[in-house]
């Protein structure tokens, strides 16, 4: 019988001969099977086809077993899938996972079979049939998750044979999501089924339109050619509706991505805005402060993994203050050791901090190695929230919320604490602030520490969405500059507006121009923008500006 499979490559007359031979043998075996089984129902008949060692017969047998309604059917098909369905002695056996052998026809345990048993072979076509059959067989499973999975399997396979089982399942189904999935699967089958009624097909189109996702759209826009005209036009309209709906949600999704990117930029740039604002110096090592924060998170998680595995869920919360301290103290150190000697020479400060950034990068590379470090995500941050056709991952939501809280806290610190008052005074007019008794150099160090510490906190958040490597800071530094330059250094609101504008503009451009072109366009736009407003959106006004 294996010849039947091989027949595809043979000349036509031989194929004909093979088919005759096959049919003959089939009838013969069937007769034999009937003779041996006293009560031969459709299930038992179908089982015997497994003994033929022919893919085509196995295929047919699976379909027949699946619709037979026999309680053993699931076991048989699963056994076939796992290579545990054995044939021999004109009987079919299922070897249980426990090792026992049972007779597939009766379910009785079979002692020691004499003679050799062979497992039924499967190929890809058979595997597809198995999946489809299991789909329809498990539609009635008591487990809702399993039923849902089965409904999806049927939706994918669109196996017409599953239709009766599907109808039955829909009639019994009480769980709404499963019922929806079942109905979608039925609609999918009806649409591709040649002899389904028009009304059925139109109802199916309706169902799919209500489902309204990418899969339904694919189904509706690729109807088989035999579909009647009115169904075609209904499907076309439905597809149009789904496209419009998806485009609508896509716009929201893009805005969300934009806000999410904007929050990341906000986190990275807000510390820079503080140091740039107060001292007028560009801290090129700012990105490395972000990197230090990310590596602090990594260290915290390593310690927790080895000593307090129960605390892993809180690892990020523990890392936050530590990252602030680590990056903040490195920042104060840099200010005291280097930057304070360079006041009034912003270009030299830029070069010196660039040098510091190289040293920090290489230092981290020497200690931790050049490869990416794995920072885990706590369980409460994984998963996603689905709204309509949008999917918002929890870690992105957490970062957006976190960025806004950091922004709010900084705003409050600058507004209501004495440190904030002094920082604002120094930002507006350094010499005047000095003559009022503010120790400007101490404020500089503190502001630098604050800005660096916030960068460290940003590193904790970025460790969740980016690779933690020595180059982490480099990838954010130019974007952060753009945000600060665009927003201006007058106040923090400029940074917020700058970050959100750039984030959303970037993500809105991306689908139309591609990621790289979109980014280039944005950079050019900023370069042009700065011609119009050389000091950003929210510039400081007054005589201090020209200082």
């Amino acid at each position, binding site marked *: 019988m294996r010849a039947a499979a091989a027949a595809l490559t043979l000349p036509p007359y031989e194929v004909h001969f093979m088919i005759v031979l096959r049919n003959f043998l089939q009838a013969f075996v069937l007769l034999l099977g009937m003779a041996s089984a006293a009560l031969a129902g459709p299930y038992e008949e179908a089982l015997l086809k497994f003994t033929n060692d022919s893919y085509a017969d196995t295929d047919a047998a699976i379909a027949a077993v699946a619709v037979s309604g026999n309680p053993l059917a699931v076991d048989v098909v699963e056994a076939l899938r796992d290579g545990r369905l054995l044939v021999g002695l004109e009987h079919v056996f299922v070897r249980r996972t426990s090792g026992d052998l049972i007779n597939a026809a009766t379910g009785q345990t079979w002692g020691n079979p004499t003679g050799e048993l062979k497992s039924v072979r499967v190929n890809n076509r058979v595997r597809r049939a198995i999946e489809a059959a299991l789909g329809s067989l498990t539609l009635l499973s008591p487990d809702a998750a399993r039923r849902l999975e089965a409904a999806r399997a049927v939706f994918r396979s669109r196996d017409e044979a599953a239709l009766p089982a599907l109808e039955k399942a829909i009639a019994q189904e009480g769980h709404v999501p499963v019922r929806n999935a079942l109905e979608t699967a039925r609609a999918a089958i009806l649409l591709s089924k040649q002899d389904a009624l028009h009304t059925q097909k139109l109802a199916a189109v309706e169902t799919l339109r209500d489902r309204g996702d990418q899969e339904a759209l694919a189904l509706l826009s690729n109807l088989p050619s035999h579909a009647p005209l009115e169904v075609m036009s209904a499907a076309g309209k439905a597809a149009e509706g789904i496209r419009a709906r998806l485009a609508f949600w896509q716009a929201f999704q893009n805005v969300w991505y934009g806000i999410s990117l904007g929050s990341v930029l906000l986190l990275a740039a807000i510390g820079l805005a503080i140091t740039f604002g107060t001292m*007028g*110096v*560009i801290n090129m090592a700012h990105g490395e402060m972000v990197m230090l924060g990310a590596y602090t998170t990594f260290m915290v998680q390593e310690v927790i993994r080895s000593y307090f595995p129960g605390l892993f869920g809180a690892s990020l919360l523990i890392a936050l203050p530590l990252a602030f301290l680590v990056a903040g103290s490195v920042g104060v150190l840099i200010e005291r050791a*280097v930057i304070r*000697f*360079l006041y009034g*020479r*912003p*270009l*030299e*400060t*830029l*070069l*010196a901090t*660039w*040098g*510091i*950034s*190289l*040293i920090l*990068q*290489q*230092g981290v*590379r*020497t200690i931790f190695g050049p490869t990416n470090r794995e920072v885990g995500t706590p369980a409460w941050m994984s998963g996603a929230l689905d709204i309509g056709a949008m999917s918002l991952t929890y870690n992105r939501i957490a970062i957006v919320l976190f960025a806004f809280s950091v922004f709010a806290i900084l705003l409050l610190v600058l507004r209501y604490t004495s440190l904030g008052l002094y920082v604002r005074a120094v930002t507006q007019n350094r010499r005047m602030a000095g003559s009022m008794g503010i120790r400007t150099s101490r404020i500089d160090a503190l502001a630098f520490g604050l800005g660096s510490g916030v960068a460290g906190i940003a590193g904790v958040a970025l460790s969740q969405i980016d690779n933690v490597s020595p180059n982490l800071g*480099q990838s954010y530094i*130019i974007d952060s*500059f*753009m945000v600060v*330059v665009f927003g201006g250094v007058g106040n923090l609101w400029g940074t917020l507006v700058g970050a959100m504008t750039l984030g959303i503009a970037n993500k809105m451009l991306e689908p139309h121009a591609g990621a*790289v*072109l979109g*980014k*280039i366009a944005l*950079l*050019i736009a*900023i*370069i*042009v923008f*700065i*011609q*119009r407003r*050389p*000091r950003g959106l929210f510039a400081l006004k007054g005589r201090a500006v*020209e200082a």
Partner: protein
Amino acid sequence: MRTQSLFDRQTTVVLSLLAAAAILVPAMNGLALPGSALHLSDHLVPLLGKYVCFALLALSVDLIWGFCGILSLGHGAFFALGGYAMGMYLMRQIGARGVYSDPVLPDFMVFLNWKELPWFWYGFDWLPFAALMVLLVPGTLAFVFGWFAFRSRVTGVYFSIITQAMTFALMLAFFRNDMGLGGNNGLTDFKEILGFPVQAGSTRIALFVLSVLALAGGYLLCRWVVGSTFGKVLVAVRDAESRTRFLGYRVEHYKLAVFTLSAMLAGVAGALYVPQVGIINPSEFAPANSIEVVIWVAVGGRGTLAGAILGALLVNAGKTWFTAALPEFWLFALGGLFVFVTLFMPRGILGAANDLWERSSQKLRARRSPQPVTQAAE
């Protein structure tokens, strides 16, 4: 007056050193026997040529930073654009000897299944045209960019940051295959220049001598510019931009002119660099490269011209040595150099040497002068 005479002496020293290099390097490579202490091995010639090109690039940065106070963190972009113009000429010279043997299209275009040469490649099979583009492309970009920036008085760190954004945007653009300039592999596999094989020892010597001549020419040009009235205005802009403007000078015109000139010099440096290293790719646009150029200038001595050359040669020789001997420590050394120079040697090596010279000669005068003074008092 004394500084003027020092400049003259400096010019003589620089030109004679360059002349010595142009004579000694070919002689040591070609005439001295292999194995003798004087012999310069073949692989060192393009390496030295590369340093000379970097020195020209540093010179162009010193011209605007040292004399006009414009800190460009995107000069690598002009260098790379000049390099690409030369690379396009060299690509066209490959002809049918590429892997795919297409007589017109470079290999990467055949690979991308392009059917005809994009319009911007026309003319690059002719060296004079390519040479013109080496000057015009960076020059035009600098002119347009500078016109916008200087007109609206973008200065200081803001200007530095947008030049950095410019080179970053160009890097992203050149990484795209659709640019028609080789994507991230860039242009490479060059065969010959003006009919001479690029890899041959004699061609390399010729390219080296040419680079030294270009450096000498660039040096003289910069010297002439900064010594002229125009140069005096530049220095005035550097030291007190607003005051110069109030005195009636159109500051933006001066800045634009010197910025464009500097970009063209950088383009020439890039054009000479490409045939000697044999490749040009988008990583030349990386912002970090442009910042490195600035440190060469700072090390040698900002605003001295000769210092830029010295700094470029020293830092690059150091880089070659470090990356071979202690690759781990190169970034430590470079970063430390940035910090050390800005903190302790704000005027660079030449500036420090100059100070030392001034101080010792002052002492000398002080030792000699008391007698005349006392005589006068008597």
